[in-house]
C-alpha cells in the first residue's frame, strides 16, 4: 500500500517570502498522480496543484510550484511571495493511475499547517 509522509506538522513564513513544504511517498508503481490540497480555516479543501508522474516537468500554478523528484519519491510544494490568504493546512496526496488497478482513491499525508506572518 502506498503511504504519504509530511514531516513538517507546522511551518511559518513571513508575508512576501518563499516557503517550501515537504512531502515524500512510498510506492512500487511507476505511474501515478500527486496532488497538493489546501484547507483554509473555512474548511473547504481546494486543489492547489497536480503532477503526473510520467511528466518530468514540474507543475506550476501562479505562485505555487512543485519540485518533483521521482527517484527520491519526493514532491515538495514551493509557495512564492506568500500572502496572508495562503495560511491553511496543506495536504499532499497520492493516487494510482488506472493502469495499476486503481480504485481512484486518494492517499493523504497528515498535513502541514502553514502560518503566514504579516
Amino acid at each position, binding site marked *: 500500500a502506498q503511504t504519504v509522509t509530511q514531516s513538517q506538522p507546522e511551518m511559518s513564513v513571513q508575508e512576501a517570502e518563499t516557503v517550501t513544504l515537504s512531502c515524500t511517498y512510498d510506492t512500487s508503481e511507476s505511474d501515478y498522480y500527486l496532488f497538493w490540497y489546501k484547507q483554509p480555516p*473555512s*474548511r473547504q479543501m481546494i486543489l492547489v496543484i*497536480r503532477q*503526473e508522474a510520467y511528466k518530468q516537468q514540474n507543475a506550476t500554478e501562479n505562485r505555487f510550484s512543485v519540485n518533483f523528484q521521482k527517484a527520491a519519491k519526493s514532491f515538495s510544494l514551493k509557495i512564492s511571495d506568500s500572502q496572508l490568504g495562503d495560511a491553511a493546512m496543506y495536504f499532499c496526496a497520492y493516487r494510482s493511475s488506472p493502469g495499476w488497478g486503481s480504485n*481512484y482513491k*486518494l492517499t493523504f499525508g*497528515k498535513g502541514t499547517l502553514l502560518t503566514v506572518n504579516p
Partner: protein
Amino acid sequence: EADIYQTPRYLVIGTGKKITLECSQTMGHDKMYWYQQDPGMELHLIHYSYGVNSTEKGDLSSESTVSRIRTEHFPLTLESARPSHTSQYLCASGGGDTQYFGPGTRLTVL
C-alpha cells in the same frame, strides 16, 4: 457554475437520532467519496462510489451507510448517532484524475 454542495454545514444533534448528510454535485462526475476528518485534521476515506448503484466501504470502518441512486447525489446516513460520530465529514467527487471537495459538514453529537 459546476460545483459540489454539502448540507447542512453544521449539525448538533442528540444521541440516538437518525441523520442524513447530503452531498450533491453538478459536475457530472461518476465517482464520489466520503471522508471523515478527525480533530488532528487527518483524512480517512469511509465510503466511495463509482457510479449509480455502486457503493464501497473505504479504508476506515464506519457505522454510516451511503446510497447512490442518482449520479449527482451521494447522501450519508447514520441510523443512530453517537458522540463518537462527532467529526468533520467531507464529500468529494471526481470525473478524471482529480477529486474536488465540498465545504464539509461539522457534526456534533451530544
